């Protein structure tokens, strides 16, 4: 029997975290959680998961910095990352893969999911990222 895959959900908001974890558990994932970027990086390095779902707007360390650190770390550089992004007042995502690349010079994350999270969209995104 294949090993249960593990996802690390990094989001400072408890409700969002609970919901994402519930979706992932329903899909058969084992879940770990962290409340800010710093804790997320620490947990991911200590025990690299199969997938990281990373919020952007967080206290202590935001998602951008966490993303960069995860990519720079030999333990987590290959772990796929899906970023959760808020939506601006105009209804468009606050951050996109393109904007991360052009605006911040970051490599693209493996996927993007808008908040509030839609279960179907998240499932599809996860399928696309980890197959």
């Amino acid at each position, binding site marked *: 029997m294949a090993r249960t895959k593990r996802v690390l959900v990094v*989001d*400072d*908001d*408890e*409700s*969002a975290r*609970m*919901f994402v974890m*519930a*979706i992932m*558990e*329903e899909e058969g994932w084992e879940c770990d*959680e*962290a*409340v*800010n970027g710093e*804790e997320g990086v620490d947990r991911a390095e200590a025990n690299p998961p199969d997938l990281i779902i990373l919020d952007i*707007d*967080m*206290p*202590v360390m935001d998602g951008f910095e966490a993303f960069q650190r995860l990519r720079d770390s030999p333990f987590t550089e290959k772990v796929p990352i899906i970023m959760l992004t808020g939506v601006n007042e105009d209804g468009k995502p606050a951050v996109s893969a393109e904007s991360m690349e052009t605006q911040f010079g970051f490599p693209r994350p493996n996927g993007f999911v808008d*908040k*509030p*999270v839609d*279960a179907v969209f998240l499932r599809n995104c996860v399928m696309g990222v980890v197959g």
Partner: protein
Amino acid sequence: MAELDLIVIREGNAPERHRLTEAGLVIGRNPENEVPLPYKQISRRHARIWIHNGVVKIEDLESRNGIEVNGARVKLSVLNTGDKIQIGPAALQICEATDSAFERTLISAEHAKVLHESILSGKDLQRDRLPVLYRAAQLLGTVFDLDDLLHQILELTFEALPVRRGYILTVNGESGLPEIRAEREDDEVSDRGAPVSQTMIHHVFDTRGSILTMDAQDDSRFDCADSILGHDIHAAMCAPLCGREAIVGAIYVDGDPEQRSFAKADLELLTAIAQVVGVAVENARLYQEKVEGERLAAIGEATAGLGHCVKNILTGIRGGSEFIDMAIKEKELRYVERGWPIMSRAIERIDLLVNNMLTFSRERVPERVMTDLRHTVEDVAETVRARAEKYNVIFTFDFCEDNRLAVDPREIYRAVLNLVINAVEACEHNGGAITVSTIKDENGFTLTVRDTGIGIPPDMLPRLAKAFVSSKGSSGTGLGLACTYKIAKEHGGHVDVESEVGKGTAFTLFLPHPETLPGNLIGFSKPD
């Protein structure tokens, strides 16, 4: 053509009469002058007064200290009977000539009364001026309510000046028009209706200068405007309240026509008082603008903070309901088991948020009931037990023997709940320990909630009592602690905090014995 006399009044001297002639009377310190005035502040040849075709004129002969007619400094002026001329300490007036010894005496006595008072008041005022200004400045430093300050300034003006009515007007921020902000009238003139001379107020606003009129009804500057005649204004003064850029108001006083008129020194004093008041009015306005700006900013911050928090909670409700929808569609109970904890937690959060908002938004007097605070702490621990267990947070308690105190039990429950929830959240992700301890002594009751969690950054510590300040990002509203501080304060107590990042935090809630508090903090006491 009637002949005219110049009457000279000097302190300590009998009034002198000099007949006005075409050639004129030279007034000055030189004893050879027609009107010699032996004062050092008077120039040798100070002024000349003459009559030509029935018109009396006065001319300043380039004196050092000048001449004043009805309080205004003039170089050359036409004089009318009744005009008050001041040259140094001497007061002069023009009146109809008389050769009757009886009339001379009578008129002299009348004029002497008026003019002497004018001189004496000027002298007195110079002596009293500094203490008055000192007191005005003192008021500025001690009275912070503008209306209260203006009333006290007016009282001071009444003490210092022979005034029967006084008003302080300030410019209305919206209409831009001056409005009476403080007023005082002596009883006997209180029924004279709307009091302030608009003509004088306009004059002061237009010229930005103070104004004194000995008899406003005859003063050419006012063209006998209705407001002067209508209000029976004789002697009146008005001085602008000057802000840094614009006139922010005016102080207006008038005197009793039966009594003596104002002197130049009176006007100077009023002007000086007005300067003090001007600063106060402008400061009050700036302060009000600042408060209003801060209030709007706080409302914006609060709305944004609450909006963000409610949006996050909605994520939970929406997410939970999505699972429940699935459960209904697929008739699978396990989806309810997934969705319900998310919804339930969201409901708990919104319940806490709304209750904290209500606590924060209203001033409360505690409804005290003798309460065993040990039970309160145990109730709180029970409320958060499931969450604490989930995150490997262990509770320990160290209660003193007697935990009874008269408090508002619902409010204190909320205050302790907020402290304990914060402690759990601080330990949530690496586990930890929370110790709740109590001490009761003669001062009151001390409850400490100590955790081994992530700690609070030092820059946040001074701002914890402020609403909408949170170190918890999206999961915090910044209302919980603000409520605890508020509840402690309403009970006459306080909250202290010690924290070290990475080590943990200790919050101490101190509640004094109600009987040691001043009356306004005791609140209602109910029987046990």
